[in-house]
């Protein structure tokens, strides 16, 4: 051994929830052991560390192997692959080509602009030293030397807007809370993240928890608060653990506690675990939940910046919003305002899921065309299917059709299109998606997750789901669409909190862009996407069928018959519309009707 010429070895193993689930910790151990075995540990002090999620969780465990400043990235690493990587790449100087990431990994990252996630995948989230070495806590220290009004002006000038839902200008929120009368004020961080499929906030806390803490310190100084809370869902154990550790480290360094950074300011942060109800992410429900009462929304006729947690002025921001703050202070409002579109500044993290080749977390500058996110970063739709729509903004967002793919991705354009930014969920749907069925799914989520205290949301959304059910079962009549629209209008007008007022959005937007699908269900008793069982049947095109027997062998209902090399037939009485034949026929002979 010892033929290596390498002097510096850094191995970065992805250890976010995705990485850990894929066995990240075992890979770290394997690397350590293997480096020892090869005698590298003694000579070169290699660094094997865990880093936060870099967004491409489908390829976990991802490992960066850096030898003398040259980095290669491996995908799907398992402990078994470690020995060859060490011997061939680190010792032998030849990367193991077949295990390296492929072109898609680079395309995935090309169009992204990583600011908030810059440190994720680079530094060890459990080490405050690594964060400091990467420039961390410089902004907080700088901010503490500035006047609160000066900070608020910078945040206002940067154009930063809330990343948790409404997109409210952060600087203005801080200012109202600063101006509110009262000595005791709170800064709060919303890490509830209840949208199905969303994991932006989790990844930030798992990968770079100190950025959130630093943002909150700056905010506390600007607002005049000595106590902060992070409300985080208990289902995020790794994030909670890393945040807890980060808070301890910050206290040790006197960045939190009494007289922080050697100034006169006191500030500390507590963690409050949420029980994981979606509605607890709503600002007033979050506050009642911290107060140890049932997490139910309250009418917001007095702003929470005037009367919030325990009746005191409270400033709530989302995890990602807080994580943006340090770099704005560090690099200036002008720099930040130079990124993004006219009224939406900076970057936004989206979780890209659904019928898309590259699922994962992506951070892009605001205003990037939707098409770039889906077809470049996301790599387009699998199996050469057609893109149909993308649902943004979480369960109560809207569906954006293909005709709007060139739309810039920012707050204004999304709400113009009848959707919203929400917290950044993005669910891609292909031609095989039934828009009525999808709307039903999202509304059902709101029926289950609403608190149920106010009538329009509790009863109204339930009734909308009932109507949608009838439509998908083929029992729709010409009255159904009208009733849906009537209910949607009242629920929007009269619900107590934003869960209710936005719950009808999926129906409103699909009625706007895909009304013909509703009409096909109701009048033609036909589900164009072939999803609704009562309105779909499959048949075999005798001209295309080669008689390969694949479908007959796979049919769970025994509904397909036919001789080898002869066209097959589906017995409609036996068929359970499970789609297996349709999905698997290699000759496109199974048709839906």
């Amino acid at each position, binding site marked *: 051994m010892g033929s290596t010429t390498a002097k510096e070895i850094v191995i970065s193993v992805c250890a976010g929830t995705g990485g850990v689930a894929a066995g990240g910790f075992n890979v770290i151990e394997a690397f350590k052991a293997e480096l020892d075995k090869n005698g590298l540990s003694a000579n070169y002090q290699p660094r094997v560390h865990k880093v936060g999620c870099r967004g491409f969780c489908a390829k976990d465990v991802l490992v960066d192997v850096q030898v003398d400043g040259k980095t290669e990235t491996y995908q799907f690493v398992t402990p078994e692959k470690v020995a060859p990587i060490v011997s061939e790449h680190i010792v032998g100087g030849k990367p193991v080509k077949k295990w390296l990431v492929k072109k898609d990994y680079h395309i995935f990252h090309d169009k992204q602009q990583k600011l908030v996630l810059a440190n994720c995948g680079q530094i060890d989230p459990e080490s405050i030293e690594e964060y400091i070495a990467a420039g961390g806590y410089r902004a907080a220290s700088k901010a503490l030397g500035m006047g609160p009004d000066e900070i608020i002006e910078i945040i206002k000038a940067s154009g930063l807007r809330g990343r948790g839902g409404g997109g409210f200008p952060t600087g203005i929120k801080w200012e109202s809370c600063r101006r509110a009368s009262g000595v005791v004020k709170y800064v709060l961080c919303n890490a509830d993240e209840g949208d199905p499929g969303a994991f932006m906030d989790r990844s930030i806390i798992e990968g770079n928890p100190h950025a959130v803490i630093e943002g909150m310190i700056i905010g506390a100084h600007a607002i005049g608060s000595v106590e902060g809370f992070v409300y985080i869902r208990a289902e995020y154990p790794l994030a909670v653990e890393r945040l807890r550790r980060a808070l301890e480290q910050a206290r040790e360094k006197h960045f939190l506690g009494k007289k922080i950074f050697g100034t006169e300011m006191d500030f500390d942060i507590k963690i409050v675990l949420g029980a994981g109800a979606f509605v607890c992410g709503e600002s007033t429900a979050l506050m009642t939940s911290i107060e140890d009462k049932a997490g139910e929304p309250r*009418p917001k006729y007095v702003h929470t910046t005037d009367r919030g947690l325990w009746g005191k002025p409270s400033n709530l921001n989302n995890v990602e919003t807080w994580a943006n703050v340090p770099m704005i202070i560090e690099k200036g409002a002008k720099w930040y305002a130079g990124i993004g579109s006219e009224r939406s500044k900076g970057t936004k993290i989206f979780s890209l899921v659904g019928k898309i080749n590259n699922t994962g977390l992506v951070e892009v500058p605001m205003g990037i065309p939707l098409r770039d996110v889906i077809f470049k970063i996301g790599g387009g739709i699998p199996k050469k299917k057609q893109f149909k729509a993308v649902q943004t903004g979480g369960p109560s967002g809207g569906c954006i059709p293909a005709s709007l793919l060139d739309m810039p991705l920012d707050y204004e354009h999304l709400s113009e299109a009848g959707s919203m930014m929400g917290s950044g969920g993005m669910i891609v749907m292909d031609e095989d998606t039934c828009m009525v069925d999808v709307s039903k799914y999202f509304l059902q989520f709101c029926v*289950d997750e609403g608190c149920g205290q106010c*009538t329009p949301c509790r*009863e109204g959304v*339930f009734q909308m789901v009932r109507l949608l059910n009838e439509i998908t079962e083929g029992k729709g009549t010409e009255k159904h669409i009208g009733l849906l629209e009537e*209910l949607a209008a009242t629920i929007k007008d009269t619900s107590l909190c934003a869960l209710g007022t936005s719950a009808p959005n999926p129906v409103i937007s699909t009625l706007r862009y895909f009304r013909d699908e509703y009409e096909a269900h109701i009048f033609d008793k036909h589900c164009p996407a072939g999803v609704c069982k009562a309105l779909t049947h499959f048949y075999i095109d005798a001209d295309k069928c080669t008689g390969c027997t694949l479908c007959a062998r796979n049919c769970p209902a025994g509904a397909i018959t036919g001789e080898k090399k002869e066209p097959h037939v589906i017995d409609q009485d036996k068929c359970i519309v499970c789609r297996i034949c349709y999905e698997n026929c290699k000759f496109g002979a199974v048709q839906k009707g």
Partner: protein
Amino acid sequence: MPTMINLTINGEKIAAPEGTSVLQAARQAGIFIPTLCDYEALEPEGTCRLCIVELSGSIRPCIRVSCIQEVKEGLVVETETERIIKNRRLILELLLGRSPYCRELLDLAGKCGVMTSRFLTGEDDDCIRCGRCVRVCRDKIGAYALCWVNRGYNRKVATDFERLSEYCIGCGSCAQVCPTGAIKMEDRGNQRRIYTWGQVVARFELEKCEKCGRYFAPRKYIDWMRRKAFKPKGIELIDLICPECLRKTERPAPAKVPFGNGAFPAW
């Protein structure tokens, strides 16, 4: 004198004391706004959404519930616009969907021009989830015997674990504030039962009045009130005397107990 606030309701100029709700101001002016979850002695929660009104003038035009919105100088309130009426009727229809035979709800719906519901669910539940019972038990009595269980459409009022309540003191306030009779209280002989959905949630033995011999209240309730009641100097709540007999005695009646309108419910 409290500061008076000037506002307009349905075109009428009105002055109301600072801190009153738009609903109270409207009522004082003789303007009817339908409500279900509102109850005088309880903090408004604004959940039934029937008392919605359109606001403009000194605030950005919006729809809000009048039970929570406080009067504000220059506020312009409309209680019967087309949009409000449409929304209100639909909300009533939605409530009727689950409680189609509830007399009180039918009366109110009739007043608002709703005769039938297009949203019948096949249920027949007199509880309209206004939450008055939960609030009175929690906020006024302090017994916490009733609570909300489940989320969303399945939300309902229940005792802990839906068993016979340990915390219930048998005061009957819940039955008293229930607008539809979904929670009932029944005294028969020396037995008191409080029940809802045909299911008994609490059962008590009643104590006899030492003076007239009438069964009047459960022991637990008497003890509770004795602990909580405000006792003016020189007045002792005498054991086991019913309110009627107490009133007939020389002593002034126990003036204030921490229950909203000052009355002991259902002795």
